[in-house]
């Protein structure tokens, strides 16, 4: 009796499981479409839903997008934007999973360093046809469009950049006043001030170095500014990293360690570096203008100011490695027209002004008005004909890996166990080899 009941129950549950799985079938069921990715079908009101993924969500950025989405939906009542915030550290992982499973969104906030990868995988829709017909086309700085085109293998526009982050030297204005020094304007000033602002009696250091995580990325961004070189590679494909002017800069920087910087700097990441500036341990740091908000919160507006990387003492030009973020359209989108409308809206002067003011980034739309002095300075720097970009070779597949692998070597240079020349030669060699492999693959693909 017991056995029969159990047998019957087993048969019933097995049978019903098989039956249900047969009902599931391929693709999405009606119940699943609501939860699935990509655009859902139109409902009775003919409202289109587009999915937007934010790659740097958090308490500061999410409310900004909520406001912008509200404005967009008011102006376009037939479009609904579904916002998904991704935590910054794991956003790329989510995109990679989405690409592999075919579950990409319509629009996403994409960093310039991801563009070459996503475009090469064929995941993005070229924006050229939409851009050419856009009324704001001439207001977006040509340098931004050209840089973004250069990131992709076929020079098409795969991202609409809306925010620029540049390297900046933050310095304590109150310390300078105490020492009776004028505001710095050149690299010579910078190196002189690291010494002048160090005061061991007051436990003050002139500078805080980034010797730990992402030290190479930041070092790279400052090299070209000092040496004035305009490209990562020369015509023969050899890396210019170990040019004597670059080596000179690294030597000068390494000499500052432990003398005018705290000893702990050898393991500093950006948190520690910015914290040292905020806590009054260091008088200057080299970072980018997005840490403006944190500085303002901890020090207050009148205690600090920023100098965008000064002109090269060799060429007189200001060179930056740009960090552009913007929006991309994914190929799988079922509503490219509406998605472009959203991208265009986010790049209008009002939206760019709103976003970049709150985030302290430099807007790419010249008609965007931002009142913060640091941003106004940034826009002026970008309008200066002496300013140029040295875009990083993010198209190299192992670009990020090379940088991570070199971090211990930079620490060895700081500790005096390796010379700057040896370090730079090794670095240049890795880039040269990587570029040669990449060029080989591109030739084969053709």
């Amino acid at each position, binding site marked *: 009796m*017991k056995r029969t009941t159990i047998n019957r129950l087993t048969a019933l549950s097995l049978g019903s499981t098989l039956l249900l799985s047969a009902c*599931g*079938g*391929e*693709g*999405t*069921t009606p*119940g*699943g*479409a609501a*939860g*699935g*990715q990509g655009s859902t079908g139109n409902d009775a009101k003919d409202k289109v839903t587009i*999915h937007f993924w934010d*790659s*740097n*969500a*958090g*308490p*500061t*950025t*999410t*409310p900004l997008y909520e406001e912008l989405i509200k404005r967009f939906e008011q102006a376009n009542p037939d479009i609904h934007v*579904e*916002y*998904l*915030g*991704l*935590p*910054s*550290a*794991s956003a790329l*992982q*989510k995109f990679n*999973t989405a690409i*592999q*499973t075919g*579950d990409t969104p319509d629009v996403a906030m994409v960093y310039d360093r991801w563009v070459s990868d996503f475009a090469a995988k064929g995941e993005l829709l070229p924006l050229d046809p939409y851009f050419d017909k856009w009324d704001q086309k001439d207001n977006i700085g040509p340098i931004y469009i050209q840089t973004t085109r250069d990131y992709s293998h076929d020079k098409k526009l795969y991202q609409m950049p809306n925010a620029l*982050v540049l390297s900046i030297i933050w310095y304590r204005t109150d310390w300078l006043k105490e020492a009776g020094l004028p505001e710095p304007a050149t690299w010579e000033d910078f190196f002189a001030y690291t010494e002048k602002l160090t005061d061991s009696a007051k436990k003050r250091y002139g500078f805080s170095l980034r010797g730990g995580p992402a030290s190479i990325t930041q070092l790279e961004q400052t090299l070209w500014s000092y040496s004035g070189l305009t490209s990562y590679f020369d015509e023969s494909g050899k890396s210019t990293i170990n040019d004597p002017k670059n080596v000179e800069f690294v030597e000068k920087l390494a000499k500052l360690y432990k003398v005018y910087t705290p000893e702990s700097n050898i393991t500093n990441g*950006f*948190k520690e570096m*910015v*914290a040292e500036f*905020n*806590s*009054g*341990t260091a008088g200057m740091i080299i970072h*980018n203008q*997005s*840490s403006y*908000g*944190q500085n303002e*919160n*901890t020090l207050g507006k009148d205690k600090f100011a920023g100098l965008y990387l000064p002109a090269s003492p060799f060429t007189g030009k200001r060179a930056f490695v740009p960090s552009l973020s913007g929006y991309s359209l994914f190929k799988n989108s079922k509503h490219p027209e509406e998605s472009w409308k959203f991208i265009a809206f986010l790049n209008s002067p009002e939206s760019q002004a709103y976003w970049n003011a709150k985030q302290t980034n430099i807007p790419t739309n010249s008609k965007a008005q931002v009142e913060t002095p640091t941003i106004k300075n940034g826009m002026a720097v970008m309008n200066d004909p002496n300013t140029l970009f040295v875009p990083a070779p993010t198209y190299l597949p192992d670009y990020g890996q090379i940088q991570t692998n070199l971090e211990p070597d930079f620490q060895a240079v700081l500790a005096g166990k390796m010379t700057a020349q040896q370090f730079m030669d090794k670095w240049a060699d890795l880039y040269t080899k990587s570029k040669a492999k990449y060029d080989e693959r591109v030739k084969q693909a053709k």
Partner: protein
Amino acid sequence: MATRLLNRTLFLYLPLWACTLFIAFPLYWTLITAFKTEAEVVSRDISYFPAQLTVDNFVTVWKSVGFSVYFRNSMLVSVITVLICLVFSTMVGYALSRFRFRGRKAFLLLLLGTQFIPGAMLLIPLFMIFKSLGLTGQLSSLIITYVTFNLPFSSILMSGFVSNIPQQLEEAAMVDGCSRLSAIVHVIFPLLVPGIVATSVFAFIDAWNDFLFALMFISKNANFTIPVGLSYMIGEFNIAYGALAAGSVIALLPTVIFFGFIQKYLVSGIMSGSVKG
């Protein structure tokens, strides 16, 4: 007398106190950081007690980051996972322990074998399965995943606990007229409580702390769980330390309360294997 006290102090109390401080201090630090203002968190002077107490971090994290939603989701997913896990692992554990059937050893080996597979490897295949079931973005996909990953280990645990209960007890009950099922319910279950508690602890912690699946399977902000919510505090260019600490305290609270209630069962559960008359 004095030597005994010295011995106890040196070899018992001192090491214990050192261990306690070592374990408790990070928790204490998190707690006070949650109540500090952001400026005080990054200031150079280390303060072991907030100079200015504030609950702003908690308010920020609960309202604008959305922890009220994430907390509810995490609770829902974890509790349902534990319940389903308990029911099925008890049955599997009982069968593994009491019945002798062909392939029992192989089945046990298979259960152990599943523990060697890293969850991240199954991410894409699981996602494809959920996509064809139409479950992507729903919390049920998370529940199914957590139950699947916890069942083997819980079953092995339960079979160990059931083995500790002498078979004579059920046999005596069945001789007195109980069916097997009512013997289990009336005799085994009360004795199994420590084992059930121990198993549910593992399942709860696993479901509560999981980050990878919660991030990858859910595509609606309203369905995210606490670990994802915590990672929002670490932005690309800045870290909201106060808010992060406040979020961590909220994430720790249910686990700590849960442990507070069940710890006596946990200890007796661990000891229950040692002496039986």
